[in-house]
């Protein structure tokens, strides 16, 4: 074999390997989805969505779980949105660059990497015990808010950073204060990006089971919550519970619940992608 033939062979070999690497994740996911779909689609019907959990697999439904998930979604959004966006605005627009803000920034990045179960333990101590909220929706939402706060702060800062300096200068030069500039110029121009970050972080929060199990969210809740102080369960916990049962029928239930959970997260991600694309089309600097 000549040298050039060898080189061409290596080139080809890497291409094949690269394709394999690219698709390996996708293929695993596709196989998983296919498996779940076969197992679970037949299980999803009106009764499944509107029934309370039950000891008998065929009568058990996910009403309390998906209602709990929606509650958690909305409450977490309400709590985390103002906190995270305000912190992001402060760090990007107001804080002076010094050692103190450097320290803050490094720690916020660190927080984003803390395992979710640690947040669960934190929530258990602060919200469940000290604030006596018990295993309530509010305690769960506060815990998940802490979990996604670093992500929201970081994406808010990225979105704000993308607004050019010249827009701020133009606003300041007309006598606007910092807050007026942020409110009238920076936020409208970066809102799409901020919203995208929030939705993506929420879709992560929706899939969390570990921290909620730690704070005492229950797998068996015979009622749908009426207020933020009620006990609750969510889809991931319900799924975890069902998959740990020995009976095969419960696995079918779990597959059905997984499809519903995936539908919710895919929907959220879809909205995020849509908003991001619309933002990119709308604003050209």
């Amino acid at each position, binding site marked *: 074999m000549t040298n050039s033939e060898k080189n061409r062979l290596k080139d080809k070999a890497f291409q094949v390997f690269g394709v394999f690497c690219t698709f390996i994740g996708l293929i695993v996911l596709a196989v998983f989805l296919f498996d779940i779909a076969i197992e679970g689609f037949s299980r999803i019907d009106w009764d499944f969505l509107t029934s309370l959990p039950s000891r008998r697999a065929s009568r058990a439904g996910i009403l309390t779980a998906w209602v709990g998930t929606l509650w958690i979604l909305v409450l977490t959004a309400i709590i985390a949105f103002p906190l995270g966006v305000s912190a992001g605005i402060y760090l990007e627009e107001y804080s002076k660059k010094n050692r103190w803000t450097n320290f803050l920034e490094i720690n916020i990045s660190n927080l984003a990497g803390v395992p979710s179960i640690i947040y669960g333990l934190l929530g258990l101590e602060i919200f469940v015990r000290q604030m006596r909220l018990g295993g309530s929706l509010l305690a769960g939402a506060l815990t998940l808010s802490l979990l996604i706060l670093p992500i929201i702060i970081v994406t808010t800062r990225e979105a704000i950073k993308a607004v050019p300096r010249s827009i701020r*200068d*133009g*606003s300041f*030069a*007309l*006598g*606007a204060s910092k807050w007026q500039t942020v409110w009238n110029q920076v936020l*409208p*121009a970066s809102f799409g990006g901020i919203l995208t970050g929030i939705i993506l972080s929420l879709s992560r929060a929706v899939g969390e089971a570990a921290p909620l199990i730690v704070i005492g969210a229950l797998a068996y809740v015979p009622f749908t919550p009426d207020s933020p102080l009620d006990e609750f369960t969510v889809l991931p916990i319900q799924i975890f519970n069902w998959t740990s049962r020995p009976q095969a029928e419960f696995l079918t239930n779990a597959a059905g619940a997984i499809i519903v959970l995936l539908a919710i997260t895919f929907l959220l991600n879809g909205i995020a992608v849509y908003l991001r694309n619309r933002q990119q089309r709308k*604003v050209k600097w």
Partner: protein
Amino acid sequence: MNKKTTKLEAKELNAYYGDFHALKNINIAMEEKNVTAFIGPSGCGKSTFLRTFNRMNDYIDGFRTEGDILLDGRDIYAKDVRVDELRKEVGMVFQKPNPFPKSIFENVVYGLRIQGIKKKAVLEEAAEKSLRRSALWEEVKDKMDKSALALSGGQQQRLCIARALAISPSVLLMDEPASALDPLSTAKIEELIYELKNEYTIVIVTHNMQQAGRVSDHTAFFYMGELVEFSKTKTMFTSPQDNRTQNYITGRFG
């Protein structure tokens, strides 16, 4: 003939970015309703100096000044001066047109809106007046609610001028206002400056020597943070006093 009064003045002004001494002991007095051009090579401090007149440098970490900048005889770096009040008096136009991503109308009335003015009639009147003054009215009067970003570069810059005029300043600072524009748009901006000096005191930073010659009454030449020479534009271009000025305006460096 009544003698023209001094509008803007700097007295023993020094400015620093951290350890860097950007402006060195500047003394200058600029007359009312006059166009003063700042010229000099890049990094000579002319833009920094321009930005001290509306305190746009305030946002830069580590920037500080010594000495006085006076507007109508008042020190604008004094403690009791409110920056937003100062900027109502001293408008600014930037190098690159920077319209807000809003409608043409909202761009022009932005300065009024942030002052809390809400009456539609007042805003509309101010918008028309400023757009007429910046010679843009005829081109945009039928599309006031269209995005300002759809305008051409030259139109955008005139919109930025209209936006600055809408809050009725008495001074207009222009930081290379035509450097990003084509020759035709540049000519329009220069014509406009000529018109506007009847009502406003104008300070313009430019890299373009011919432009300084065409639009300004007085010219100040800066070099390495120093004000080397300040005189009538005609005098400067025909018989510069300093060697460095001569070298610069004849194109030997810069």
